[in-house]
């Protein structure tokens, strides 16, 4: 048998502050974005996935980039790099955003939270070096860009995340989806948002690195909470219909093709008070007006065979229609699920297409996303 998972990677890897805890918990560590990260614990991806859907799962996402933008001009400056409304974002509110390139493609996607005296950004691990340089180059003269390598990031996700976290600080229950605030947790001064990447209710917790292990242990001591690795994080986000940067979206995909139009507020679209003014705005505005020729869709397999990233999607005659960007057997939905970019005339709901897997054509149907309903606390 052969698979990439059977090979070892000799490159030296960075460690998160929780590395020793992962090893102690029996995690299988794999290279990811230059870090040694837990792909799964002994329970396995399926059990970890289900635990997150029904109880609460703790993820270490400290490999992601945390940054602060400080200064009176920070919000206006950031608006010159993203098509989102940052200036009007109220204190305590979080917003999904993306850096665009001059071709209207996506440089990275990120979360932005307005705090009392700064903007708090979380960017993808694989993009954080480039993102930081991008910020310094373009808006470094307008605000202070402060990377936070001294902070870990934990995600506590699942329907019972709130009851577990409440025991450490009851005030966290006052947060609603996509809001955040400062909370003391297990003696650590943390910044907590009620958000995540699983489709479930839950929290992301920015904690000083030297207090991260104590906080993680306090969370794992709660009866609802078990650790989950990047494997479950990936299957959870895919069932939730959420894009993974570098796979479902990248520098060659526009937010309109990716179905992320909802994330561009009206005020930044043509006719809005602060329309345009970010890289590639002309391209994106043009696509908003004229439409796009391909779009990201969800696909559900009609047979049990998993359809993975890279699989060709063809029509009944075998003519190519697109390619799968993410795919797995959905552990909660028990069906093959995937995302793909398809020509718009084949992207209608229930449209039947075929995935080519090992020389066979497997029927799939264009489906709504998410594949499992979001259960956010709004």
């Amino acid at each position, binding site marked *: *048998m052969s698979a990439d998972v*059977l090979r070892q990677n000799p490159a030296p890897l960075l460690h998160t502050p929780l590395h020793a805890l992962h090893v102690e918990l029996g995690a299988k560590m794999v290279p990811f974005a230059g870090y040694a990260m837990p792909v*799964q614990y002994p329970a396995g*991806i399926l059990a970890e996935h289900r635990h997150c859907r029904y109880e609460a799962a703790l993820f270490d996402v400290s490999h992601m980039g945390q940054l602060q933008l400080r200064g009176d001009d920070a919000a206006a400056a950031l608006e010159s790099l993203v098509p989102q409304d940052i200036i009007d974002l109220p204190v305590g509110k979080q917003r999904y955003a993306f850096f665009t390139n001059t071709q209207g493609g996506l440089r990275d996607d990120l979360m932005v939270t307005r705090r009392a005296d700064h903007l708090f950004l979380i960017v993808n691990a694989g993009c954080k070096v480039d993102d930081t340089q991008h910020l310094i180059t373009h808006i470094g003269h307008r605000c202070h860009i402060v990377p936070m390598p001294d902070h870990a990031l934990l995600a506590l996700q699942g329907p019972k995340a709130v009851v577990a976290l409440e025991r450490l600080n009851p005030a966290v229950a006052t947060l609603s989806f996509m809001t955040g605030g400062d909370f003391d947790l297990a003696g650590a001064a943390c910044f907590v948002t009620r958000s995540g990447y699983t489709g479930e209710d839950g929290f992301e917790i920015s904690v000083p690195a030297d207090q991260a292990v104590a906080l993680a242990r306090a969370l794992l001591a709660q009866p609802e909470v078990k650790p989950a690795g990047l494997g479950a994080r990936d299957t959870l986000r895919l069932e939730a219909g959420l894009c993974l940067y570098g796979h479902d979206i990248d520098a060659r995909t526009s937010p309109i093709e990716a179905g992320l139009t909802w994330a561009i507020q009206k005020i930044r679209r043509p006719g809005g008070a602060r329309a345009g003014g970010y890289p590639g705005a002309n391209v994106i505005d043009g696509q908003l007006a004229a439409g796009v020729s391909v779009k990201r869709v969800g696909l559900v397999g009609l047979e*049990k065979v998993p359809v993975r990233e890279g699989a060709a999607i063809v029509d009944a005659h075998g003519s190519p229609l697109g390619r799968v960007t993410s795919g797995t057997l959905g552990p909660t939905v028990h069906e093959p699920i995937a995302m793909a970019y398809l020509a718009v005339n084949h992207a209608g709901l229930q449209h039947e297409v075929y995935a080519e897997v090992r020389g066979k054509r497997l029927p799939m149907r264009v489906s709504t996303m998410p594949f499992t309903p979001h259960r956010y606390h709004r």
Partner: protein
Amino acid sequence: MTTKFTADHEWINIEDHDAAVVGITLHAQDALGDVVYVDLPEVGRSYTQGDVAGVVESVKAAADIFMPVTGEVVEVNEALRENPALANSDPMGEGWFFKVKVTDMAQFDGLMDPPGYDALLKTL
């Protein structure tokens, strides 16, 4: 010695020459993680040593199953098709993949014995 191993992490038990049992090793299932789908070979079809005879897919990856020896497939594990997790819970027993009629004992003899496979695992 009735069980031998391949460098591709299959095992073959030749107690019955006309129906030698093939599966994946404990290490293979551990490296793959939760198995969610198997593609088994065709009963009655002959395969040459090294041919792709099936596929095992976990949540995170797909891996080919290679034929450890030349021969005709005489039976496949239908229970495994129904419950692929057997490959994780009992890879050397209930989680077997298929049975093959062995034609060339020299091929079997050329595979790794248990100490040889253990030594291979230590190099990974």
